[in-house]
């Protein structure tokens, strides 16, 4: 069974559209994350939730809105997509948000905005 899964794997859409990416983890972890990896492979944290509560909200346009219906799911909704949103988005989870906790990543969603 996949530990951290994301759907879709690929997403191609027009500028101005609204889209969602779903993430689920079956590891029983308390903390989940969304990262953006740009074309230079730099991983940037966007959001983190611990037990369904937002604990990290980096400087991200408010067009991006995370939603955590339960601690096994953290979805990412993006409004009014822009060309610069094209990137690979990774979901991850960890047991807690403490020192040394391993983060387990999903396979990524490659978003292309045309």
């Amino acid at each position: 069974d996949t530990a951290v899964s994301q759907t879709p794997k690929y997403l191609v859409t027009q500028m101005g559209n609204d889209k969602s990416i779903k993430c689920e983890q079956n590891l029983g972890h308390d903390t989940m994350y969304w990262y953006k990896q740009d074309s230079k492979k730099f991983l940037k944290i966007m959001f983190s939730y611990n037990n369904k509560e937002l604990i990290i909200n980096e400087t991200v346009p408010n067009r991006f809105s995370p939603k955590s219906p339960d601690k096994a799911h953290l979805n990412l909704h993006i409004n009014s997509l822009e060309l610069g949103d094209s990137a690979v988005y990774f979901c991850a989870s960890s047991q807690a948000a403490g020192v040394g906790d391993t983060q387990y990543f999903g396979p990524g969603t490659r978003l292309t905005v045309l």
Partner: protein
Amino acid sequence: TQLLEQSPQFLSIQEGENLTVYCNSSSVFSSLQWYRQEPGEGPVLLVTVVTGGEVKKLKRLTFQFGDARKDSSLHITAAQPGDTGLYLCARRSNYQLIWGAGTKLIIKP
């Protein structure tokens, strides 16, 4: 932001050669993690180092944490094509990981 600098950014070598990649910071960190990311997949944890001077081995990979806990290195002995990937270091800061930009490693058969 307490940045992590990784070097080299890109390395392409022949199978069987040895290599070392580095992760440096101007700040002391309590622990450091190394991840490997293969094309089309998410990063996967290789090791966590915590104690200054610590050395950990994972088969042909040797990880070292600097005595002052400001730097770390990853040495691969007799590299194989399966070692190809993006090697990322990360340190913890305020409930999140701060990531280096990575070293892209290609091992040619």
